[in-house]
């Protein structure tokens, strides 16, 4: 599945970041904990139901401006898709005019 650029990823119920004071930062979910650092943390912090996929890509391209922007985009789409397969993410508010499909 390739995420819709206009959809807004949000962590699924029962999936959350541990407290910012705790190290290392991890994404907690049923029977799993994913260690996050650098870009993966930047991405997950933006899966708040507010940022669209497109905004997340633009912001990370700005942060990692030495990296190839096309590669940043591909990596982010791949990572979001992986999190969705693990049921750590839902895609909400996809723009109906572009199909709004999350499947």
């Amino acid at each position, binding site marked *: *599945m390739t995420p819709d650029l206009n959809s807004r990823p949000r962590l*699924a*119920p*029962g*999936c*959350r970041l*541990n*407290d910012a004071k*705790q190290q290392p930062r*991890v994404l*907690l*979910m*049923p*029977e799993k*904990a994913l260690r996050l650092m650098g870009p993966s943390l930047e991405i997950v912090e933006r899966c708040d139901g507010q940022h669209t996929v497109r905004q997340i890509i633009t912001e990370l391209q700005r942060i990692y401006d030495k990296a190839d922007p096309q590669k940043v985009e591909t990596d982010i789409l791949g990572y979001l898709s992986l999190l*969705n*397969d*693990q*049921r750590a993410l839902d895609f909400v508010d996809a723009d109906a005019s572009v199909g709004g499909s999350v*499947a």
Partner: protein
Amino acid sequence: MNSTVSTPLALIAELTHRCPLHCVYCSNPLELNARSNELSTDAWRNVFTQAAELGVLQADFTGGEPLARPDLVELVSAARGAGLYVNLITSGLPLDESRLEKLVAAGLDHFQLSFQGARPEIASEISGTTTHAQKLRVLEWLRGHRVAVTLNFVIHRRNMDQLPEMLAIAETSCATRVEFANVQYYGWAFANRENLLPTREQLNSSLGILKQAQERLRGKMRIEYVVPDYYAKFPKACMGGWGRKLMLVVPSGDVLPCHAARVIPGLTFENVQNRSLRQIWESSAAFQKFRGQEWMQEPCRSCDRREVDFGGCRCQALLLVNDAAATDPVCSLSPNRNKVDAVLTRVADIPVTATAADVKPAWIYRSNPT
């Protein structure tokens, strides 16, 4: 700190051995802790705080039936407050909507609802009580809450043919994860093994069904399958390796490396009321006993997989060949694999249509402590 000791990732909190169900495959030991021996609310609070300081990320509330603890809402709140991710592993009895609401408000992250089958008759046969309708009610209530939901179907010879119906229950629910876990043969399940072990044909057919479902439901639901290790080529990495990732605190406060460790003769367990969790984890004799590789016998000692499955399960080695340090006899490399094959041959001769009443011994139901 001993450099070979890793950080535990999860604390399994057996809050009580009391349970309204009497499942014939219960993972609890045959000798159960009485209510009068259970840790107090404050003692558990202290355990959660110590666990978080030790680096533990998740607490698995289990039992017995954790809902049997009247202070469960406080315990959820204490564990979450300590910084832990809180899992509740439950039969859904006894529960009403208002208590569920309180549990979620207290910070419950993940609700794991166990099922004994897809139909009321099998659920009653296995649990020795009426449970199925209540579970379906709980599943409906969960729809309204922001909590992860896993359905946990415990499968075996008597309910494996209901897999498609179980999938249908999961698909129409709010669950994002479903586990089909074959019974593991310890505790009460070991006593009922002949009636629970599936045949190879049943196992193969279930693998096909679940593989298809995984493809079809990708992105909608995570489907996990635990196969019966008697049919496996290599053993499971039991508990992720002895004293490597998990620790279990039983209702009385004794700390064990795994659910069944009490069957191993000569092991003594320390109690959280007498010693810190860190000390017990890092240096108690029970946790050190099978850490690392020093204890291993051949073929494990020189095996390429010794860091993959850590020799398999110590309790299974004890139960099947009476030596807790032996290679797990389910391993195809074990000199004792013939003992497992003999059991499989025996159950292959029992028709799958036979009920427990047809087979001797018939069900031995789990008792309930006072």
